[in-house]
């Protein structure tokens, strides 16, 4: 057997940088690297020159200066004597609380609407379609502003709630006189405890042990419920009969937390009109209400579409096969359709949570003091440190996003279909 040609000699020619698959990619990457470095150097050089021209430097020390501005809605203690850093934390909490409430409410509403959209009921399905199309195709900003304007311009002023002897007041409270919606905000009852657990001061952050206790009890209840379900499954696998457990679940989930709250002496402080305004209870600013309602309504329409698409993505054959095996419709849903539909629904759902979280920054339209309002708004304007504030703000948003993405990736990895 003779060789057709001699083995090639490994001499290097310049043309190989372009035509040889071994070197080609390095050539391109080196060029890209040089271009990127040149671009970065150019930007950095410009920044240094501009900073020098404006007599500025890059320094994050301003974060520990006194703010001097007030934030109405603060979940951690805050006064205008606190530092900019604390204002940042307050803003971050405000961002997260709107995002959390928005995610929960829009998921509930979105799932209901998405399922109803697929209903065989003609009228309901049409109504839901109209809802989805109207909310999806109009900017979110419009809903935020509209809800805010409607609340703050159509609601009566607090003085209209004043009850004068022998006269009917101009405005009434809602829900059995517990909630008052005025043009300045919404007054809702505040939960109070007669015998609360002590509060621990952890450095600068006070932590209410009562709240911790409630959360711990709820978590324990949920865990106990999981144990119960697991035991039921074992029983089912051993005997073939699945015991009825729903009432046990209800007991386990609700009795401990109710008992704890009762023991701590939960009662409500209702808002009462006194003098010129409402006293007692909690005053929720319309900026928060408007942002939450608008985010909920808008994202409910988006989530509804996801839910509908997810359910429709499951092949009809799946439910037919399940039915042919004699599985009842309810079980078909929980054993066959939902596990598959969730696989389709959850990844886009999480990315919608991500968008919702980012869209909380639209609170700027109603002056909601979230992260952008504090750090990227008042702090930035007061200190004039655009570069530092913007960098820090983007970084925080980026971290939040990356955390949510990481959750999504972990989920995707765990439910990936086993395929060859």
């Amino acid at each position, binding site marked *: 057997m003779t060789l057709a040609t001699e*083995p090639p000699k490994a001499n290097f020619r310049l043309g190989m940088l372009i035509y040889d698959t071994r070197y080609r990619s390095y050539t391109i990457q080196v060029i890209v690297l040089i271009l990127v470095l040149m671009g970065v150097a150019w930007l950095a050089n410009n920044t240094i020159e501009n900073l020098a021209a404006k007599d500025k430097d890059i320094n994050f020390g301003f974060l520990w200066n006194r703010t001097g501005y007030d934030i109405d809605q603060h979940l951690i203690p805050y006064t205008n004597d606190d530092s900019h850093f604390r204002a940042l934390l307050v803003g971050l909490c405000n961002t997260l609380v709107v995002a959390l409430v928005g995610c929960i409410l829009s998921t509930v509403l979105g799932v209901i609407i998405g399922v109803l959209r697929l209903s065989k009921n003609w009228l309901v399905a049409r109504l839901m379609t109209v809802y989805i199309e109207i909310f999806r195709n109009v900017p979110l900003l419009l809903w935020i502003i509209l809800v805010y304007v409607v609340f703050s311009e159509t609601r009566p002023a607090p003085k209209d709630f004043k009850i004068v002897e022998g006269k009917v007041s101009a405005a009434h409270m809602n829900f059995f006189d517990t909630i008052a919606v005025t043009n300045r905000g919404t007054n809702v009852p505040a939960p109070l405890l007669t015998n609360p657990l002590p509060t621990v001061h952890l450095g600068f952050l006070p932590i209410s042990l009562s709240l911790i206790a409630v959360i711990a009890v709820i978590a324990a209840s949920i865990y106990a419920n999981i144990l119960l379900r697991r035991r039921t499954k074992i029983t089912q696998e051993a005997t073939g009969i699945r015991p009825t457990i729903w009432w046990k679940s209800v007991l386990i989930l609700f009795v401990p937390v109710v008992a704890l709250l009762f023991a701590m002496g939960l009662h409500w402080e209702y808002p009462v009109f006194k003098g010129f305004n409402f006293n007692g209870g909690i005053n929720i600013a319309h900026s928060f209400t408007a942002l939450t309602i608008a985010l909920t309504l808008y994202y409910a329409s988006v989530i509804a579409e996801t839910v509908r698409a997810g359910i429709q993505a499951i092949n009809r054959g799946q439910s037919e096969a399940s039915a042919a095996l004699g599985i009842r419709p309810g079980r078909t849903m929980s054993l066959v359709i939902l596990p598959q539909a969730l696989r389709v629904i959850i990844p886009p759902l999480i990315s919608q949570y991500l968008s919702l979280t980012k869209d909380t920054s639209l609170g700027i339209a109603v002056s909601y003091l979230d992260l952008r309002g504090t750090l990227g708004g008042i702090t930035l304007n007061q200190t004039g440190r655009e570069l530092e504030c913007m960098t820090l703000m983007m970084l925080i948003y980026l971290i939040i996003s990356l955390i949510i993405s990481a959750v999504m990736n972990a989920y995707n990895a765990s439910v990936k279909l086993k395929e060859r």
Partner: protein
Amino acid sequence: MADPAIDRSKMKVSDEIAIQITNMNKWYGTFHVLRDINMTVNKGERIVICGPSGSGKSTLIRCINRLEEHQQGQIIVDGTELTSDLKNIDKVRSEVGMVFQHFNLFPHLTILENLTLAPIWVRKVPKKEAEETAMYFLQKVKIPEQAHKYPGQLSGGQQQRVAIARSLCMKPRIMLFDEPTSALDPEMIKEVLDTMISLAEEGMTMLCVTHEMGFAQAVANRVIFMDQGQIVEQNEPREFFNNPQSERTKLFLSQILGH
């Protein structure tokens, strides 16, 4: 066992070497898929490669047009050595046609567009000429009337014949077949095999990974049996089937012919 219906007049094996593989080795990570392959294919040869699944037979022919990269040894196709040089790879690929198990037709193009795409863009043939060639080969695979349909509208057998025609439009000197009938329903296998037989009758150099032993007996001049990434046995078909030498070959043949 030669089929009298097959015209063997043009099936001549010349002395010229078409493919030369010397001491070729390939790994997937640490897994040694091809071990010390030595093989010479002359022009006009019809070679059937068989073997149990995972034996490396598909990988071997995919190395021949460098869909897979080999790590050691030498592959010379039509005088061009396959190295990492893009020009050589392009040259080899334009002279070697390949037919895949899953057809891999382009679903967004009509049959005719599928056939003319590569001649127009790689061979730089004028469109009209490319279309004439395409119609000629569609006639040959006996589906000229489907020219303006899309691949999704054809049956599996028809799609595979289109895939063969698509390769032929590049006027290749060598054709590689990677299990061309494995994804087909039984009644469609014959139409594809007929097309391949007529190709052999015209003297095409063919390397075919297949389990169609009837085809091997009728057309091939050599059968190669691979197992565990190695060439275990090769022989002319009659001897290979009637008088296998290695134990592995015997076991394999008893399994696929036993049913």
